């Protein structure tokens, strides 16, 4: 196996890591802070993807000259749309389900069915075509054997940006301080005057917004249709649970490990066996570390 292949495989692992991380971040925040498992997370990603599609359609119709930058506008719009939707969702029914994670799973599963059918009714059962911007097509070829797809580079960059922004939000702003406080000790935070209800709503909304960004970015790689959410949801869950709840570092580490495993296993065995092997490894790992890789100590 030549060096080119090794480098390409390593890059694939890196790219897959960023894709998983981007998707898992939103879910991890929501799960970590509020113990809410949002089975509709995939559909929130699909919402971001459809927003991107609509943005493309609007640009094509009214501002064809500016088509090149539509993706950047779309990502921001996707965040806004899913942020607001998440906010509405949290206020309307998620907040009645705190401390009942099993029930939340079922209720959000029901929500995901409703959202899927809504997409199908609005946009039709077929996938919709989301155009790739010119500057993201093709690959960068530093050497004849290596070709690095530009869209994957873009996603890596986006994930880094989102990661940094999240870090800044959580560790450098007052809101982040409140969020961390409520995560660690809800009762005490309430006692010192933090409005925990608002923090919850904000956190859920941020998590949803991140899902929207992920969905928007993924239109470059995958299809956009009513079942888009289902394509990635199982992997996302596994990453979050494996990484350990309440730890973003855990999420990143889990995403990295799973991505590398998947990339190398797919190279050596068939796709379905690779997937089954990874799930099995995660189950075994959960057996030895039931709270995930990095489990923080919290007091509820």
């Amino acid at each position: 196996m030549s060096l080119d292949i090794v480098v390409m495989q390593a890059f694939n692992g890196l790219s897959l890591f960023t894709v998983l991380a981007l998707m898992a971040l939103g879910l991890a925040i929501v799960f970590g802070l509020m113990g809410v498992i949002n089975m509709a997370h995939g559909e929130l990603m699909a919402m971001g993807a459809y927003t991107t599609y609509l943005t493309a359609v609007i640009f094509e119709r009214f501002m064809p000259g500016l088509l090149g930058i539509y993706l950047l506008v779309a990502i921001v719009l996707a965040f806004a749309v899913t942020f607001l939707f998440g906010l509405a969702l949290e206020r309307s029914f998620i907040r009645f389900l705190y401390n009942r994670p099993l029930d939340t799973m079922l209720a959000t599963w029901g929500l995901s069915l409703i959202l899927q059918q809504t997409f199908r009714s609005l946009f039709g059962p077929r996938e919709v075509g989301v155009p790739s911007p010119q500057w993201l097509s093709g690959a960068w070829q530093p050497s004849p054997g290596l070709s690095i797809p530009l869209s994957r580079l873009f996603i890596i960059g986006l994930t880094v940006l989102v990661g940094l922004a999240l870090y800044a939000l959580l560790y450098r702003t007052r809101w982040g301080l409140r969020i961390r406080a409520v995560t660690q000790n809800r009762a005490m935070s309430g006692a010192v005057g933090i409005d925990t209800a608002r923090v919850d709503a904000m956190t859920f909304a941020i998590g949803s917004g991140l899902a929207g960004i992920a969905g928007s970015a993924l239109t470059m790689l995958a299809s956009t249709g009513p079942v888009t959410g289902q394509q990635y949801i199982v992997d996302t869950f596994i990453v979050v649970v494996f990484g350990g709840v309440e730890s973003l570092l855990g999420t990143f580490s889990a995403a990295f490990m799973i991505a590398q495993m998947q990339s190398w296993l797919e190279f050596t065995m068939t796709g379905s066996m690779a997937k089954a092997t990874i799930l099995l490894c995660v189950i075994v790992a959960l057996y030895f570390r039931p709270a995930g890789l990095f489990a923080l100590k919290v007091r509820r």
Partner: protein
Amino acid sequence: MTQARVGRAGELAGIVVLAVLTSVVPFTLDEFRQQLAAKYLCFAFPAVGLVLLWGYGGILSLGQGLYFGMGSYFMAMFLKLEAAAQTNTGSALSQFYGSSLPDFMVWNSVETLPWWWRPFHSLSFALAAIVIIPPLFAFLLAYANFRKRVGGVYFSIITLALAAIASIVIIGQQGYTGGVNGITDFKTFLGVDILSNGVKRVLYFVTVALLLAAVLAGRALLRSRTGKILVAIRDREDRVRFSGYNPATFKAFVFAVAALLASIGGALFALQEGLASPSLVGIVPSIEMVIYAAVGGRLSLIGSVYGTLLVFSAKTFFSENFPEIWLYLLGVLFILVVMFLPTGLAGLGERLRRLRGRPARAASPAAAGGRPARSEVDSAVEVGSGRPA
């Protein structure tokens, strides 16, 4: 916290009504609807299992499809081996390729029957496999996890992942399992034509009988000492452990019981519908099984049977008339049941009474202290939602 009151006159009346209903049904509905009812009842088995496991054990398994699938595939393997050269396709294949192996093996170029298929030539082995392997596997899995105090959400996700793995492996190994097509096209069971209406009617009664037996067995279990300890574990696992019991054993036991029920349901399904498919093994069908139990009432064994019948009837009705609406309805059902009807239909009467302001029929002693009597399910829902202990 009082223990769950099971088996009052109400339950008994419910069982009697159910028996009448399901015996009357075959004589008033046409054959197609009757066979539909039989299919629905197959799914009542995992639902009953979930009432025991989730309602009374506090363990939410999102992977019952795995055991349902095991039961259906074991039965299907037996039926397929019996049918091998009798079907049209089978005989065409043996004519062209000279092989009497099941059709999907022939066109995947499997030369000889794998060793683990061979014992399924015998009915007794197949039946034994159906009632032994899934509960054994379930027990070992659950015991290993509960011993390490893996509980609540994490365990649920493990069950979810297992169902996903099973579905992926079955689909990926199509030479041995029929892949995404599943195992189909069988004709006879020990020489009896299972496609004829007469035999289907007999199967219907067999299903009803087994289901009633399961419900009665469940009631007996809940009344026994084991059942009481189980409920105690659901509500206050620590105290039970301090009292000297090993909660892991009890929880694993009820998990195995639920797996056994699901497996029997799967086997009956394969017999009635004539196919075993990975589409009943994965995540989606497993989560749907939970809703059958939830609609009827996760604390009512009979209620889960009603829940199953109701949800399936709705599914058939809507998919015949308004297919687009069915998914909306199912989604709304999930949300409504979880948020407003945690006790399902069976508990509806109780809730209505409480909403009207009269005290609950069975007041818990805690009410004596002046605090409003909380329904046991609400408390169970809070505590039994289990974090890793």
